[in-house]
């Protein structure tokens, strides 16, 4: 026997001023199954909730409709309220008579009539609701951090400090990431390595952190609390348990002149190498594509001979390691745009046109020039450098509409460093707008202009071309409304920050969404900025969008807090409004499978009685750990065997019937 109670809220006068709440309650009393209806000033307040609970007991209600504000506001509140009174929380429906009625229609009879219709729809729906139970999911209390840059390092340290095990998977030989490549940081001009390396050492030594460097994610299975991740540990040719990182091998390796990607190909490294002197782990790897041993059938072996601990093992192979994790933090960072679509700037054509990251290596004391700024073409000290902002950013026409956020500041910093190191050099900055939102940022920019005499030109650069032994940078000064041409020894392009080239492929492996620029999507831009749309996967750093170091670190700590929050629970509660299969009706056509964004639908073999026989057949089944309750499968299903609990066909049709009456 269905016994429905209807509770109409006045919301002070928010509803009552334009809706005759008494009339709505009265009309509700005539609806099928409704045995009780009342109104109250504030249904969401304590006395209101008590009123509902009392009525449930007094009138033996087993279903409830609350006509109040949007379900986005108080659906949870009222679900909890009915649950406390012993009614399954999913036997409560909200009729949205505030946002979608009283606030948008001022004619009282009109508003009242519509409110009554909305209540009737909610009553019709709730009559077809069935009790739903949230499932409980176990949690594997180990976290995976993908990427060992500053975001990954910070997240790993925070999680490990809370007492949970963390694995960092880093593609390169060492953790450190982009921050290790930088020289100084804005706006304090403190040395990037000096603040990063202690943290790297902490991760390296932490008993709860395992670093899988020179490794990549092969595949991710499972769901929140229960991911099964396969990690490819690329063959290093060096036994990490034996190696002491003494450096004999890389100092003696005869292949010396390989481009060092850590130095943005501006410097060299041997075939057996660590990325940089402070590398963590301090265990080298052999670059097999360039090592003489591998290229010439076992010749050379110098590293093997000089290694005092016999750590070199040429026979090592890639290993696939399967591990279970409860949560994943994505911290895969960024790369700078190749700017191939901008041939007019000549990056890649003229050696003295470089990106900001190249410039960092040229100005860094650990870089190929030991901190002396020299231009790549002939090693000459530049006397005039042009910095080009928004190089590839904020250019919808060529595919990137977004602002890369850090460039205004780092270019100001680079201009300052240039003026400090070569006081007679001129620094020109072409810009569209200068964006210095951040503590002490505007002041820093003003110092660049006023103290360091950096010349800011507002306008885009149209062309860079060589002339004699220098480059000519032509553009427009939009403040003067005139074309300008500046002679430069070097051009530094603040190339757009973009996700790693394989970000989309990785996102597909992990099962998270990404935007058109391939930045990973957060669950909500304001209120859930470090969670992805997939339960148990969190985001930190530039893989989610361009940001500077302090923001990255803050986001990494926030992601870590989310992981720790998850791990602190005994079990996870799964959503109750999920898809389920009526196996008797399912014919196993699997039209539902391709539409599921979460790969939650799998085949399942069932046994069925057919007359006297038992037969086996394959039907769809829903993994409730993966399903997020979108209902696309229910529409793809031709027979209606797939149902979305909470929004079943019966419920929606009943609502449609009711609103049309």
């Amino acid at each position, binding site marked *: 026997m269905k016994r429905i109670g209807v509770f109409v809220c006045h919301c002070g006068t928010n509803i009552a001023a334009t809706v005759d709440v008494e009339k709505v309650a009265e009309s509700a009393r005539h609806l099928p199954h409704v045995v009780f209806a009342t109104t109250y000033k504030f249904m969401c307040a304590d006395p209101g909730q008590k009123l509902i609970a009392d009525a449930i007991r007094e009138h033996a209600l087993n279903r409830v409709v609350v006509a109040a504000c949007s379900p986005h506001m108080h659906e949870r509140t009222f679900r909890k309220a009915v649950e406390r009174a012993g009614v399954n929380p999913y036997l409560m429906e909200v009729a949205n008579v505030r946002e979608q009625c009283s606030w948008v229609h001022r004619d009282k009879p009109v508003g009242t009539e519509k409110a009554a219709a909305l209540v009737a729809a909610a009553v019709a729906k709730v009559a077809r609701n069935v009790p739903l139970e949230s499932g409980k999911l176990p949690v594997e209390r180990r976290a995976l951090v993908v990427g060992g840059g500053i975001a990954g390092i910070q997240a790993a340290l925070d999680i490990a400090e809370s007492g949970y095990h963390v694995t960092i998977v880093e593609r390169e030989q060492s953790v450190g990431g982009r921050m290790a490549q930088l020289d100084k940081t804005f706006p304090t001009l403190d040395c990037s390595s000096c603040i990063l390396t202690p943290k790297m050492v902490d991760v390296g030594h932490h008993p709860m952190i395992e670093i899988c460097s020179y490794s990549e994610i092969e595949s991710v299975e499972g769901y929140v609390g229960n991911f099964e991740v396969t990690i490819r540990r690329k063959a290093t040719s060096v036994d990490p348990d034996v190696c002491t990182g003494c450096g004999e091998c890389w100092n003696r390796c005869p292949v010396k002149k390989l481009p060092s990607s850590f130095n943005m190909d501006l410097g060299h490294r041997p075939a057996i190498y660590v990325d940089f002197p402070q590398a963590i782990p301090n265990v080298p790897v052999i670059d097999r594509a360039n090592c003489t041993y591998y290229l010439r059938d076992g010749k050379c072996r110098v590293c093997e001979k000089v290694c005092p601990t016999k750590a070199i093992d040429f026979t090592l192979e890639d290993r696939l390691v399967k591990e279970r994790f409860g949560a994943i933090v994505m911290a895969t960072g960024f790369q700078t745009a190749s700017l191939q679509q901008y041939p007019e700037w000549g990056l890649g054509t003229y050696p003295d046109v470089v990106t900001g990251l190249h410039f960092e290596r040229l100005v860094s004391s650990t870089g190929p020039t030991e901190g002396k700024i020299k231009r790549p073409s002939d090693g000459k000290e530049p006397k005039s450098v042009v910095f080009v902002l928004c190089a590839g950013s904020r250019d919808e026409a060529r595919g990137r509409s977004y602002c890369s956020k850090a460039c205004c500041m780092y270019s100001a910093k680079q201009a300052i460093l240039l003026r400090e190191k070569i006081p007679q050099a001129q620094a020109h900055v072409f810009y569209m707008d200068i964006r210095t939102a951040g503590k002490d940022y505007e002041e820093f920019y003003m110092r660049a202009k006023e103290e360091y005499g950096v010349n800011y030109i507002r306008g885009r650069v149209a062309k860079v071309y060589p002339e004699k032994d220098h480059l000519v940078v032509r553009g427009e000064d939009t403040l003067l409304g005139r074309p300008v041409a500046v002679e430069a020894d070097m051009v530094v392009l603040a190339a757009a920050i973009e996700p790693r080239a394989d970000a989309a492929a990785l996102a597909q492996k992990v099962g998270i969404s990404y935007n*058109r620029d391939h930045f990973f999507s957060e669950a909500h831009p304001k209120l859930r900025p470090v969670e992805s749309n997939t339960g148990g996967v969190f985001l930190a750093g530039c893989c989610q969008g361009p940001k500077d170091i302090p923001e990255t670190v803050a986001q990494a700590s926030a992601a870590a807090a989310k992981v720790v929050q998850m791990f602190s629970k005994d079990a996870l509660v799964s959503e109750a409004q999920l898809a389920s299969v009526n196996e008797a009706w399912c014919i196993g056509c699997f039209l539902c499978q391709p539409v599921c964004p979460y790969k939650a639908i799998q085949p399942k073999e069932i046994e069925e009685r057919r007359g006297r026989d038992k037969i086996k057949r394959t039907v769809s089944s829903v993994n409730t750990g993966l399903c997020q309750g979108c209902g696309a499968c229910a529409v793809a299903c031709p027979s209606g065997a797939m149902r979305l609990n909470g929004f079943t066909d019966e419920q929606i049709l009943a609502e449609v019937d009711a609103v049309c009456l």
Partner: protein
Amino acid sequence: MPVNESAAAEAEMMTEAEMTTDGASGAGADAGTGTWEPRIVAFCCNWCSYAGADLAGTSRKQYPANIRIVRVPCSGRINPQYILRAFQRGADGVMVAGCHPGDCHYTTGNYYTRRRFSVVQRFLEYVGLHPDRFSGHWISGSEGEKFVQTAREFTEKVRSLGPNEKMRDVL
């Protein structure tokens, strides 16, 4: 429990001029005056379009009361048969609204909506439904104004067509 009393105060502070806009009456045959009002069903996805309608409410933007919203988690949940059912039961116009392509809360649901309803829309037209009686819209959670505009325009269009008889149960 927190209650929203300031919103009430706000509502009371509105000027007369604002109060006079869009005083459309409720849908259906009005018993008092006998004038016909179109009845419109809008299927809105929970995360974008329903939130957009909520925003129209919190911004106190007025639109005709003819629109009645049915909430679904995702526009991908909208079965074309729901549209038929609405017309059967007396709707004069039906709207389907979801997140903009690329912004779906569930990543891809609205791409299926787009495919499905491109076909269904043409087909409904083909079997003799007036094309102006069914429409699809992308309305985000921040587009309260777009929701209002859409509601107004659609209502007016349907109003000008008069009551729908196609597919209708009882006339």
